């Protein structure tokens, strides 16, 4: 698959690396994600899914961050 527009963090497969393009989230959620280092342009890797498939664990700026698919669906990404 190529980097097509409209891809979100929640749709990425295990081990996929990506880059943040933008957000479709309410401002308070967007702000905290930004502050946790998931800024536009930040690179990350999908490390694992919880045993029940949700939340998602990603590696960003050298540490592990988990977020629910619900929010991940609001993080617009491009595959790397």
């Amino acid at each position, binding site marked *: 698959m190529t980097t097509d527009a409209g891809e979100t963090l929640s749709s990425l497969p295990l081990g996929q690396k990506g880059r943040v393009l933008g957000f479709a989230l*309410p*401002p*308070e*959620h*967007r*702000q*905290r*994600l*930004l*502050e*946790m*280092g998931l*800024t*536009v342009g*930040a690179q990350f890797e999908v*490390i*694992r899914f*919880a*045993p*029940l*498939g*949700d*939340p998602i*664990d990603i590696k960003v*700026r*050298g*540490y*592990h*961050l*988990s*977020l*629910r698919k*619900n*929010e991940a669906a609001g993080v617009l990404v491009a595959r790397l």
Partner: protein
Amino acid sequence: MAIAGNPNCGKSTIFNALTGLRQKVGNYPGVTVEKKTGRFFGSHGEAMELLDLPGSYSLQVRSPDEAVARDVLLGRQADTPRPDVIICVVDASNLERNLYLVAQMLELNIPIVVALNMVDVAEKNGVVIDIMALREKLGVPVVAMVATKGVGLIELRQAVSRSPLPPPTIWTQMPIVLEREVMGLAKQLPVAPDIARAEALLLLTLHEAALDEVTHHDRTVIQATKAAQQRLGTAGIDPISAPVDARYDWIGQVCAAAHHTGDGHYATSISDKLDAWLTHRVWGWVAFLGMMALMFFCIFFVAKVPMDAITNGTDWLAKWVGDHLPESDLRGLLTDGVIAGVGGVVVFLPQILILYFFLGILEDTGYMARAAFIMDRLMSKAGLHGKSFIPMLSSFACAIPGIMATRTIENRKDRLVTILVAPLMSCSARVPVYTLMIAVLMPAHSALQKAGIMLIMYFLGGAVAFGMAWLFKKKLLKGETPMLLLEMPPYRMPSWKGVALRMWERSGLFLRRAGTVILALSVLLWALATYPKPSDPKATPSEALAQSFAGRMGHALEPAIKPLGYDWKIGIGLIGSFAAREVFVGTMSIVYSVESKDKEDITPLRDTMTNEKRSDGTPMFTPLVCIGLMVFYVLAMQCISTVAVVRRETNSWRWPLFQIFYMTGLAWVGAFLVYQGGKLLGFH
């Protein structure tokens, strides 16, 4: 002086290492956030007060804990003076994200010493940090530390003892348009000039809904902020993201100068390898369930040994006092009120200590985050958070440690809902009631069938807890679902000293705060069951109880509990066990005048209850009444210790009272449905 930092950066370890046992734990007024202070001595022997600020990711706050940290740093916290020096703890193995808070702190105009902790972990990951370069880039003293091994403590003491430390000279430059708006707004703020810029920047970066909730500034300031935000918007600058981006850009430059990553190619860390197993689709569950089973086993069974010893001890003490004092009200007050009350408090200590031992280890090792990661999906079905699981599980042993464990939940609503439903989990105090009622219900059946009934009761409690959690989230505490953002820190060895300190601190808090309430209520309940005294001095205990306040309340209660199939005698049992469920068995013994040598042996009481008749000659304890009573005890609050702890943890009487009300209501409805519904279906 204050110590601040991200969660999981080793802040507590440094705080403990500096202050040792010279710590004080209290609460900030009006909130349930813990205020920890300690004394330590600088390198010249000068005494210093150190305030341990709650772990925060940002000054743009998301939780009550973070709000306290922000308010203290901005001098808004009424009872706490603005610190003169901040020790900012930074995890070297997670430098970029940790520097974000530092970047914000540098804007506060308070002298900062950066404690660069866990440099050993960073080096193992192939990251070498150039301390000199970092110091130069940040413009503040930087001390390399391995707090768990005591490395860098002397240097840290030296760094903070140097006085006076200058305030920071370097901070993130915002885009010029934003900077101009910040300066403009800063001039309008009624705060000290040295923090005006920081205040203005925080205001400008608030989103609209949060701005409307601001109470510490008047409306004109809010209007000015909104106008500035609008101007920024037209200039193409997003006030939400621009400062964050600017700070991370600056952090990028700092890291580029100070970070010497090896070849950028290092082996998967041990932590990642462990996680491959511990969050595995199959093995993750096995490990999780195994760990929870072990914890539950220890709280439930291992704690039983010291708990029995405590019970025996208080029984012995009560007997000793009873033997050595003449028959009087004072003797009754001492043995049945004070000693029973104190015993009722102390008896929870083993469970609390064991729970905090486990919680400390789970928290320290980083497994707590994994447990939340694994459980989040299930818990979110009820609108709860992955972190609600451990408090709920602990509540099967006892709601008190369970409710105390909710402190790990950052979100206020999630925490409150967890507290509200936790006592629905069948705790060990219900077991005596279940055992008695099952014995009356089916005296001849096998142990397996009895265990089956007991299991159904446990299941009922859990199911209702989830249902109520869902309902509370939906109706009572609605609003936006908080987002889950869980940092998964690398696995670490627990700090035994830290775990021990926490166990010590928690049990002390429990004894002081909840203990006093429990004691007072125990004395009150004793008085209710004792006064007024029977006019006939030869009255049996049963007769005396029947005409005491408690007995009269039992009578008065009869109309309310008649639809459940109960009479006033059961009413007395319900009132007597309002303080603690297990008291039901003892109260019923007194009500039915059952003298038993061995308190553990319920057979005589069971036989009496089986033979108890209503006025029309039919048996009192029909199967429906027995099951109804059990259901009542599954759902009813009936535990003043829990009430006291909820009062303490929510800092108001509102929630514990609500909890008594809703749980008693549920219990009544449950027992009503069993009794009346059962009768309609032709059972008896």
